[in-house]
Each structure stands twice: as C-alpha cells, then as structure tokens.
C-alpha cells in the first residue's frame, strides 16, 4: 500500500510499504477514507520530540471503512463506516473503565520505555513516536485498528465523512478541554490557539453554557472562523496586549477558565518568546511555553487552567503564579472513546460544526505538500484532509 512516512526532521515522503494484517484476534483492518493533519504532528516533524524512527508511517486522525476483522471482534462488521479515536484503548482496564481512555494500561507495546520517561505508561497512539507505542499511522491506504469493538465508532446516517473525521481527535480534544472547565452559566472562557482543537474547544464551551468565549491567535482567518462558528470575541496577539485586553473584556476579573490549545511551539511578540526560540533551537529546552505562561497569568483567581497542548519538560514554569492564585489545572490526552457518542449527538443537533476545519484537500500521494502548507499555515489552511486514491 501507499503511506506517508517520516524519514527524518522535515523529511516526509509517500512510500510503498507492506499492507497491515490482522495480528491479534480483536484487530480490524480499515480502508482509510480520509485522514487529517494535527498540530501535534509538527512537533516530531520539526524534531522537538524524540523516539521517531526513519520509515514510520504517520497520521493519527482518521475515519474509514472496515474491510476485515479478527475472530474475536463481535460488534464491528465489514463494510461499517467508522471513526477511530487516535488513542488505542482496550476498554477493560481500570483506566478505560473509569473513562480515562488515553491512560489505558495495556495497549502500549513500548510501555517500559515510556514509563522511564513519564513514571507510568499511557495508551498507544497511531502514527506517533515509539514512546507512544510506535503503531503505524493512518496517512495510508489501510490501517490496523486493535481492540476494534472498543475503538471503532459506527458513523450514523446523515453524518458526512468529513464531519466524522474530526471526531477522531480535534473534536473530542477540544470538547474535553471545555468539559474540564466545569462551565457554569455566565462564565467567560478564553482559548489560546484557534486551530482545529481551539475551534472545537470554543464551540464546545459555547455548547456547554459559556456566556462568552474569547479566541487568541495571530491568523485573521482563524479568528474570523472563531467569530463565525462560536460567536467568539477575538484577540490578535500581534496587534494587542493580550493580558490588558482580557482584563478589559472581563471587568478586571480575568476569564473563569483558560484553555491552552497551542503546545510546545508557541509564538509570541515578546522577549520571553525570543529567549525560548533560541533555547529550543539549541535543544537546551523542549518547549516554547509562551501561550501557557500567558494563560496562567490571565486566568482569574480560583479559576481553571485546561491544558490540551503537547509539552515536554518545560523551563520557567510559573508554578508560583498557579499556587498563589489557587488555580485548578486539568489536563489529559484526549479520552475520545468517552466523548464520541456525545459528539455525534451534538453534530445531529447542530451544536458543533467540524467540517469547517477541512479547508484544504489533497490526495494521499500529495500529502507531504499538504503538511508543508499546514506547517507554514499558508493560504488560510486550517486542516489538510488526505484521501487515498
């Protein structure tokens, strides 16, 4: 089959690789219908997170058609049109039973390697680093899905491929970020980063009852989409001082909750950003944490900080600010299996628009160019969607 492979820093190529096969009895094989880029892919493409190997098939956000199932699969059938969360979960361990799916304790083949770095291992992911399992990704003709009965969600009639695609990662991640904020009527939620996950967080915060949502980004088209789809107020951080503006918008209190949908490669106008940029380029630190630090500063006393961005080991983390302001931090990799049924319902009720993220379309053969555009954020791209021929 054909697949988009990582061959080194900033070196992606579509290559011919072996087809996946049923290996374990609970596996299914999907014929990929559509897959999409994620901002977290940029971290390993740019070489900021370790344990990628040359030749890895990448891609963790996808939907497709079931073409084969293992002997122990009972619910999923050939021909089913399904969406699959990016984390591989067994559905049987303590973490899965307690809806903490991305913390699944049984699906990471490199658990020992990863627990050396994190203390304990997480679930495996498709098409990501080997610390996170090393499973082949979904920017490919076919993909093997372990634990198919737990991880394949049948797409209801009336939901298009493109709408369903983002239920694989962007939508559940954004929704979870808003869910973490415990939103009460009348609250104000600010979201850093108006990319795919940020847009989903803004729309979800609205759906969960936030009175006002505020989007912070530097790309006018992303801010415009946030205004259109989530009735967000917007701050372009290249044009206005974010903290002053947020105080102004909230009567000096600050937002009740702040969501970080940016991660380790934040941009910013200040000295701190320049310092981070140099240090990260020299590999002296893993993270440029400008957005996260700003969110910590901005959130009201006793408020919630919800972290969705991907980080390594961050320098100059303002723990004292968190502590003195009595802030609650909530964070996780997405628990998609918990949220997907709810998200189908929201699509049905028109509370969520996911297909607005699919701004650019490419064939799988052209996916390296898609990533290049996505990385450079050219032509107003939100997400690149790939379809195998």
């Amino acid at each position: 089959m054909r697949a988009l492979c990582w061959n080194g820093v900033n070196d992606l190529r579509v290559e011919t690789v072996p087809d996946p096969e049923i290996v374990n009895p609970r596996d299914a094989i999907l014929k990929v219908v559509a897959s999409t880029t994620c901002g977290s892919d940029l971290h390993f493409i740019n070489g900021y997170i370790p344990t990628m190997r040359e030749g890895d098939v990448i891609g963790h956000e996808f939907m497709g058609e079931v073409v084969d199932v293992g002997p122990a699969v009972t619910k999923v059938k050939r021909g089913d049109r399904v969406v699959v969360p990016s984390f591989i979960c067994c559905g049987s361990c303590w973490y899965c039973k307690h809806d903490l799916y991305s913390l699944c304790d049984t699906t990471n083949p490199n658990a020992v390697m990863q627990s050396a770095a994190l203390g304990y291992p997480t679930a495996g992911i498709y098409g990501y680093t080997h610390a996170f399992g090393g499973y082949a990704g979904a920017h490919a003709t076919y993909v093997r899905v372990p634990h198919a009965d737990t991880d394949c969600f049948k797409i209801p009639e009336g939901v298009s491929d493109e709408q369903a695609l983002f239920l694989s990662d962007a939508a559940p991640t954004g929704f979870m970020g808003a869910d973490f904020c415990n939103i009460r009527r009348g609250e104000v939620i600010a979201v850093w980063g108006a990319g795919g996950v940020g847009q989903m967080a803004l729309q979800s915060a609205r759906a969960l009852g936030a009175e006002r949502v505020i989007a912070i980004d530097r790309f006018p088209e992303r801010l415009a989409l946030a205004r259109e789809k989530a009735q967000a107020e917007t701050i372009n951080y290249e044009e206005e001082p974010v903290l002053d503006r947020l105080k102004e918008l909230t009567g000096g209190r600050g937002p009740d909750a702040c969501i970080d949908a940016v991660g380790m490669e934040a941009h910013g106008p200040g000295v701190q950003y320049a310092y981070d940029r140099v240090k990260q380029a020299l590999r002296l630190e893993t993270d440029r944490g400008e957005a996260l630090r700003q969110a910590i500063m901005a959130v009201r006393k006793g408020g919630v900080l919800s972290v969705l961005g991907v980080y390594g080991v961050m320098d100059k983390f303002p723990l004292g600010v968190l502590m003195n302001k009595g802030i609650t931090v909530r964070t996780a990799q997405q628990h998609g299996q918990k949220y997907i049924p709810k998200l189908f319902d929201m699509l049905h009720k028109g509370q969520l628009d996911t297909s607005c993220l699919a701004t650019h379309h490419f064939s799988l053969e052209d996916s390296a160019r898609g990533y290049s555009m996505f990385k450079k954020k050219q032509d107003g791209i939100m997400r690149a969607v790939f379809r195998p021929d």
Partner: protein
Amino acid sequence: MESIVTSAQQGLMALRSASTSLARTQGQRALTPQAVNVGSGERLLSTLLGGVLLLRAARRPSVGSVALALSGGALLHRGVTGHCYVYDAVGRKALPGAEHTARPERSITIERPAEELYRMWHDPRHVSALMSGFAEVEGMPDGRWRWQVQLPLGKSVEWTTTTTEDRPNELIAWRTEPDAPFVHEGSVRFRRAPRDWGTEVTLSMSFGSPGGVLSELTSGLFSMIPKALEEEILRKCKSMIVAGELPTLERNPSARKRTRSSTSGAAARR
C-alpha cells in the same frame, strides 16, 4: 574453537566458585569482620582495573611490574571482596544500608482476583508466553521448569528450577537446582489491592548467589536490568489477562523493511 555455551558455562562456574570462595572468606571473617564498604559500580571498576594491571605485570616481569602486580592484586581484592582498607582507615566502615542487597523487584496492579492470577502463573502456556523475549520456559510433568536463554551465534544456556514455596493465591517461589550453571531465584506474590483495583502483583527475579559477582552485577547500579525485565513480564501479564492480548508491533507497516511483500493484504479483502 570451543563452543560459546561451554565457555559461558565455564565462565559462570568460575563466577560461582569465586562467589563460593568469597562466601567462605566472609564466613571466616566472623572472627575478623570486614564489611563491604565499596559501592557496586566502584567494585566492578576495581575488579576490571586490577585484572588489567595484573595481566600487564605478568607479561613482562621486572621490578616495576612487581609494583604493578601488587597494586593490581590490591585492586582486584578490593573489587572482589568489596572491602577497602583505605576507606576503612578514613572511617568508612560499611556502605549505608549495604548489609542486605535488596533483591530487585517490580510491582503492577491488575484488575483481576488473586485466584485468577495465581492460576495463570501455574499454567505453563501462560508462563512461557510471559517469559518469551527473555527465555523459553517449559513446564515439565514433574512440576519443574526448564529455562533456556538464547545467546548470540545460535548458542544457548539452560537451567532447571523447582518450586520452593507455593501458597495458593499468595505466593509462588522458585530456585535453580544445585547442578545449575548459576543460581536463579524468583518469586511472584499476590496481594489484594484497595477499591476496585484488583490485585497487586510483585515479581522478583535474581541471578547469582548472594554476594557473588553475578548477583552484584544484577543488583545495585545494574539492577535496572532485572527490573526492566520484571516490568516487561508484568506488563505482558497484565495486557494478556485484562485486555486478552499482548500489544504488538508485529507486521507493523513501515518503510524500513522492504523484504516483506504482503500479498495477503487488504487488497484481497475488498
């Protein structure tokens, strides 16, 4: 050329006799006690360096080489016994808490009752699956276990263990038989976990007799080797019993291997 197995076994026998004689010296020291006051990493370095110096001295006998041999011998003694007279003189009589080298162990919590886990650890099929990647383990009809570890160049080392303790739903312990090339001891313990967590399972595996060189090599500084092995085995145990299968990258597509051409792939399924 002698087979690697034989030389490996000879090596292991040598280690064993070294550790036996060490144990004997330690026994004699009941009269004049000499505590271990050198850390395991340093002991290893001392032993290696002492050996190198002795070999160099033996190659070209001279007045200078006698001095070399003396310091080599002193270092070797320091490495093997773990006692340093210099340290002793400056007041470092023993390593803090070094009386008992703790056996490396790892624990995992598994969402199943102890009865089920205990049964699993008695089932030869399961045990050999858990140990795969480290050793081939085979349950023999008389209740003993035969272990085989593959070495490079198609060679292997084998040993047999017997169960030394078996408390239903609590503990299984095993140990090598006296004629084994080295001592291997292991145990798996089961303890009820709080709430709905199931059972806490602790696996302990040690290699070499206590105080012996092999035991030193796999404890202290190098205990990460058996600990990583134990963690791998416990993770497998958990995945197998909770998720029903082992997570695997077998036949995982990548652009690395081009030898495998898959014709049984999904194209045929459409």
